[in-house]
């Protein structure tokens, strides 16, 4: 036999099965491009030189892992779909006299072709797109200096290795399929009698309970900390619930409908119900996949976009004033510090405003109603409640408060004023150690901070009679690693263009720290760079993964449409012969298909709706409290996604209708 026989046959096969293999190869190319791009950006040397790149690199690494896992699952899924479709063809070969080892050889060559095509195109595409995406990433993280982007040989190697392994494994499973079957089975392929699906009340019940639990958690979460801790628990419950309900719940429901004879034996319901039972059986897992993927796309996109857009607002939450310089009152010469700041300001012609300075003491305490205890070390029982009860307390002497507010309040020894950043402090008194203090007023505002809708932990400012009282409370409550004496703070806002302020911030830090190494400087403009890296990285990853998941969804829908089409064409004919109108048949089938394909989208939207409260709480942990913004981002995300989904459906529906005619 001609030694090119098998490669030729393999090539012909791929061409003949083009309508399924071309999308498959496109998926492979897409996954390879995505993987390589992530790897090459992650290992880019230039990234190391940027400030705050550690967070970004961590996010990118997470991306690599997710894409890797995703590629394995998804390529296996599509491969098994393809080989199922082709069983008849393979059976025919073996009847025509090809032995199993010959068929295996054909499959081997096919895999080789697929691998070579997808790897070469994928890597080339990855190199080209990678450069583009890298520039995009630099843009979203607001990094201006141009960085070179080279071909990453190490990345090429890793990507090739990973995908060779995946392709190898799919080939192995195909070998196994051929080996375990005989020609007759292969010939009959997909069509050996469709068993009526079994429905299990238990699985359905598990589905309802876990979906309910997931939703319940989502709705009952009250604080950002709970949200962060419980979000993934809820996600797991919802995923289990989704699969269980798609697989078993749908069929249980349909079977109940079938038992209702009056309902079932109506011409409209009769065909829909029994048709849906079979469609759900064959598609349940695929549809559940689409549902979960869609939910992931929506959640990822809406959170990352909200974070990115909302970071302007968030940074204000972190930094009520642009710059704060805090040092131990006893050991720092604040007049000198101020002089240094002024001279740096003069050098760059930067102006400041809202300048305030005051004494303070700061400590963390553990709140039990009105009793505040020394901060306890977290033990293994670090449940949400523990974090819930930690509070941040800042003490300020009345003199400083009166001076800053131009007020003339007065306090007795055991009296305090309180300002709470979050919800109002509800108790009439406050107890530190053995001393009880009477709260004479709940302040509505304070010069050094402002009210926030979401307060991570409880932040309280207490105005006390004088420095003596302040020091007394501080010495009682302070932890071993806190400074020994009370502090002094200098805070102000800056005016000027961003570049100048960045330079000023760096210069000022260096100059101040030179003489006062222990001083603590917090600067909005320094933090900005880091925030951009953090949220820009998130946005980048979100959009990247979002598009990848979207691609997967599109492909699953396409494959589903095709396989439905093959099977429906037969049914379509029989129904016509038995006396059903052509248009009637088309309408019924069209309706079923519509239901099947829009069920996952509906499911995803419901999931997102229930997830919304958790998402807002979770974003509040990042100080994003603008619920309207989050809602708008989510809404736009849902609408855009639904449009894309519908578009894909309409496109693939065309190939479906071609098949049934």
């Amino acid at each position, binding site marked *: 036999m001609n030694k090119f026989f098998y490669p030729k046959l393999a090539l012909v096969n791929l061409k003949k099965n083009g309508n399924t293999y071309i999308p498959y190869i496109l998926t492979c190319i897409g996954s390879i491009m995505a993987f390589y791009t992530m790897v090459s950006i992650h290992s880019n040397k230039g990234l190391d030189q940027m400030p705050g790149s550690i967070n970004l690199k961590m996010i990118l690494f997470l991306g690599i892992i997710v894409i890797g896992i995703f590629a394995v699952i998804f390529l296996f899924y599509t491969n098994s779909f393809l080989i199922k479709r082709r069983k008849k063809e393979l059976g025919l070969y073996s009847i025509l006299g090809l032995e199993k080892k010959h068929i295996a050889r054909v499959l081997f060559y096919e895999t080789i072709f697929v691998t070579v095509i997808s790897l070469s195109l994928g890597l080339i595409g990855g190199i080209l797109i990678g450069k583009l995406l890298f520039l995009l990433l630099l843009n979203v993280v607001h990094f201006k200096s141009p960085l070179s982007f080279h071909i990453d040989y190490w990345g090429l190697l890793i990507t090739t290795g990973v995908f060779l392994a995946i392709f190898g494994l799919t080939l192995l499973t195909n070998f196994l399929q051929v080996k375990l079957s005989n020609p007759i089975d292969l010939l009959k392929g997909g069509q*050996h*009698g*469709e*068993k*009526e699906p079994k429905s299990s009340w238990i699985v359905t019940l598990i589905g309802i309970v876990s979906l309910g639990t997931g939703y319940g958690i989502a709705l009952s979460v009250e604080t950002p900390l709970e949200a962060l801790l419980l979000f993934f628990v809820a996600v797991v419950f919802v995923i289990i619930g989704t699969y269980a309900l798609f697989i078993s719940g749908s069929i249980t429901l349909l079977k109940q409908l079938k038992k209702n*004879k*009056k309902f079932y*034996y*109506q*011409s409209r319901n*009769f065909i829909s119900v*029994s*048709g849906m*039972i*079979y469609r759900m059986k064959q598609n349940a897992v695929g549809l559940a996949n689409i549902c979960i993927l869609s939910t992931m796309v929506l959640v990822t996109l809406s959170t990352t976009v909200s974070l990115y857009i909302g970071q302007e607002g968030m940074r204000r939450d972190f930094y009520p004033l642009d710059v704060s310089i805090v040092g131990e009152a006893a050991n720092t010469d604040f007049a000198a510090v101020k002089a240094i700041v002024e001279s740096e300001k003069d050098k760059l012609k930067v102006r400041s405003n809202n300048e305030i300075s005051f004494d303070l003491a700061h400590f963390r305490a553990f709140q039990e109603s009105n009793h505040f205890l020394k901060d306890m070390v977290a033990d293994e029982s670090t449940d949400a409640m523990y974090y819930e009860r930690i509070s941040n307390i800042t003490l300020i002497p009345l003199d400083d408060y009166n001076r800053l507010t131009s007020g003339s309040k007065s306090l007795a020894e055991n009296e305090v004023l309180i300002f709470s950043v979050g919800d109002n402090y509800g108790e009439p008194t406050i107890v530190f150690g053995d001393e009880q203090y009477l709260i004479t007023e709940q302040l509505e505002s304070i010069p050094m901070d402002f009210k926030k809708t979401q307060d991570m932990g409880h932040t309280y400012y207490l105005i006390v009679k004088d420095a003596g009282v302040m020091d007394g409370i501080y010495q009682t409550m302070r932890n071993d690693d806190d400074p020994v004496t009370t502090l002094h703070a200098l805070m102000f806002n800056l005016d000027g263009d961003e570049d100048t302020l960045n330079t000023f911030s760096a210069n000022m830090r260096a100059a101040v720290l030179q003489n006062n190494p222990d001083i603590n400087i917090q600067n909005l403009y320094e933090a900005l760079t880091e925030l951009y890296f953090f949220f820009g990285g998130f946005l980048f990853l979100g959009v990247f993964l979002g598009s990848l998941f979207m691609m997967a969804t599109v492909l699953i829908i396409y494959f589903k449409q095709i396989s439905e089409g093959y099977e429906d064409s037969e*049914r379509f*004919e*029989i*129904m*016509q*012969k*038995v*006396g*059903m*109108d*052509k248009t*009637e048949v088309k309408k019924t089938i069209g309706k079923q298909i519509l239901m099947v394909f829009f069920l996952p989208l509906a499911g995803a939207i419901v999931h997102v709706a229930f997830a919304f409260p958790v998402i807002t709480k979770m974003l509040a942990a990042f100080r994003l409290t603008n619920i309207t913004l989050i809602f708008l981002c989510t809404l736009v995300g849902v609408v855009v996604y639904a449009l894309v989904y519908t578009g894909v459906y309409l496109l693939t529906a065309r190939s479906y209708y071609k098949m049934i005619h």
Partner: protein
Amino acid sequence: MRLLEVKNLKKIYTTRFGGNQVQALSNVSFSVEQGEYVAIMGESGSGKTTLLNILASLDKPTSGEVFLDGKNIVTIKDSEISAFRRDNLGFVFQDFNLLDTFSIQDNIFLPLVLAQKNYQEMNSRLQSLSGRLEIEEILQKFPYEVSGGQKQRAAVARALITKPKLVLADEPTGALDSKAAMNLLKIFAAINHLGQTILMVTHSVAAASHANRVLFIKDGEIYNQIYRGSMSNDDMYQKISFTLSVLASGGEDLE
């Protein structure tokens, strides 16, 4: 009473781009009386299937007329044709054409459900059929769980449950083993005995030998017909075989 009357039926297939013309039926006329059991025989390509498709209103003739119970089915509007087929005709196919998504019972109910009959009515009709067709045991099963003979009996039940004026059978024994085929033919004879008119297209001499009358079709024309008269099945078999061999040898001198 004349149930079916076919007059000067002609069907010409034109290939898609108008090139070749194939004449499937050149001039076919015959009639079927109420309560008759007629078999149509002929070789592959003789036009049997085309004829049956036209009778089943699945296809339209190029010219000619078909009257069922006095109504010309050639001129029925497309929108009414499905309902007409459902109400007046019963079909039995070679490959059963049962839907694998329905149980046997639901397959049998299908035409009635489409005609929007209520469940009690459907059930009582099925009761009276299932005994005769020996399918009580398998009603709740699915098509892939039962044998070919059982599938075909279910298909017969589906054809009969609408109480059609005419049952059209296309090679009903084609996919059955000889025992199941014989069983099915007995059932056909029995339902014919009860007054059901049957028109069957077949290759099988054994199948045709159960009919009251056999029409032979060749090159798109009725070539000959045999009436049973008082003949037994065996005599019928002999006569059909003889006719077929004459037909095959191209004999001109018959009758």
